[in-house]
Each structure stands twice: as C-alpha cells, then as structure tokens.
C-alpha cells in the first residue's frame, strides 16, 4: 500500500530540520520544543477522547465478529490516519484563508464545543 503523496509531502523534510515549514505564526522557540509540546498535548487529548468513542467500539465489534483483528486494525488504522490527515490539511487550508487571530478564535470555540459535548456525555450517562 503506497502512502498517498500528501503524507510523503508532510514527511518530506526530516522532523529535526531547524526551519519549520508551517506557515502560521512562527514561534521562535527551538523547533524540537514546539513539536514535542504540540505532539504530546494533541496525543493525550485525542487519545482520551477516543477511548470508548464510537469508532473504537466499531473497531472492537468488527475484530470480535471477524476474529481477524489484524485485518480490522489495518483497515481502521488506515482510515484513522486518513481522517487525521484530512483534518490537519483542512485546518492548514483554512489557515491560508482566514487571519490567524480569527482562526484561533474559531478553533478555540470549536474545541470549547467539543469540551461541552464531552461534559454532556458524562452528565447524560
């Protein structure tokens, strides 16, 4: 399965490259610091949100029913990578069209809505 070219274009320059290729506001901190801080905060938040999420339940049921979890994991994994990639590419596409401050406000409000949705899940159960 050859990875679609957007992934290779994302990974074209090695991560430890000093020049950060992102076009949004450049924070002067060392490239490594920002990358890992963003990576960790994204990883922890999305991992927690995904545990018990309907996608995970779907994967779980598929693997139990088919009794071949490897194939299910491959299919699900590729789908998850694709949706994450689509999400980030869409975010970047928006970043080119909307001023950073407006985008940050919209992103903040969107994340706030997700937070409220999660709290709703907790209270609702």
């Amino acid at each position, binding site marked *: 399965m050859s990875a679609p070219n957007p992934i290779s274009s994302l990974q074209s320059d090695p991560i430890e490259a000093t020049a950060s290729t992102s076009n949004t506001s450049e924070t002067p901190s060392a490239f490594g610091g920002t990358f890992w801080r963003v990576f960790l905060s994204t990883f922890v938040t999305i991992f927690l*949100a995904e545990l018990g999420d309907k996608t995970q339940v779907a994967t779980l049921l*598929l693997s139990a029913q088919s009794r071949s979890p490897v194939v299910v994991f491959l*299919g699900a994994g590729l789908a998850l990578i694709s949706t994450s990639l689509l999400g980030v590419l869409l975010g*970047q596409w928006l970043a080119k069209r909307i001023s950073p401050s407006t985008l940050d406000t919209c*992103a903040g409000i969107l994340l706030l809505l997700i937070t409220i949705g999660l709290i709703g899940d907790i209270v609702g159960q």
Partner: protein
Amino acid sequence: MDFQLFIVSFITVFVSELGDKSQLAAIALGGSSPSPKAVFFGSASALLLASLLGVLLGESTALLLPKKLVKGLAALGFGLLAVRLLWPEPEGLDL
C-alpha cells in the same frame, strides 16, 4: 489477507470518524498550531493506539478505565486547548 474485511473496516471507521470529535480537533489544532505536523502525528498515533487497544483488549477496554473518568479527562484536555487558543498567555501562543 481478507481484503473484503479490510475494506469494510476502512469504510466503517472512515465514515464514523468523519466529523467526529477527534477530526474536528485535528482541524482546529491543525489550523492554529505552529507545528501542524506534530498535530497530525499526535492525532494519528493517538487514534492508532486507541484502536489497537480496542482490537486487542476487545470489550474489556471499557473495564480498563471508567468511562466517566476518561471522558472527564478528555474534556479537561480539550478545555485547556480551547482556553490556550481563546486567551493565549501574554508572551504569545506557545501551543
């Protein structure tokens, strides 16, 4: 390699993930973060780990962590990300 099952898994998860919380977060963070590559790798690896747990542990994943605690921590995480975007600290956005 059961290709039909692979396709079914791909489509099922792809459709259920479109517009899901994690993708909305990827869009929001992907656009506003100084390091979109980190957002992609962070989001993709988190989703892979969660689905790996789902596949390997099966139903017992739910026993692993009480649902309310996990959702609460996730809400806290997203709330922190939102606050940092809406009210960045004076010395500029560090997310």
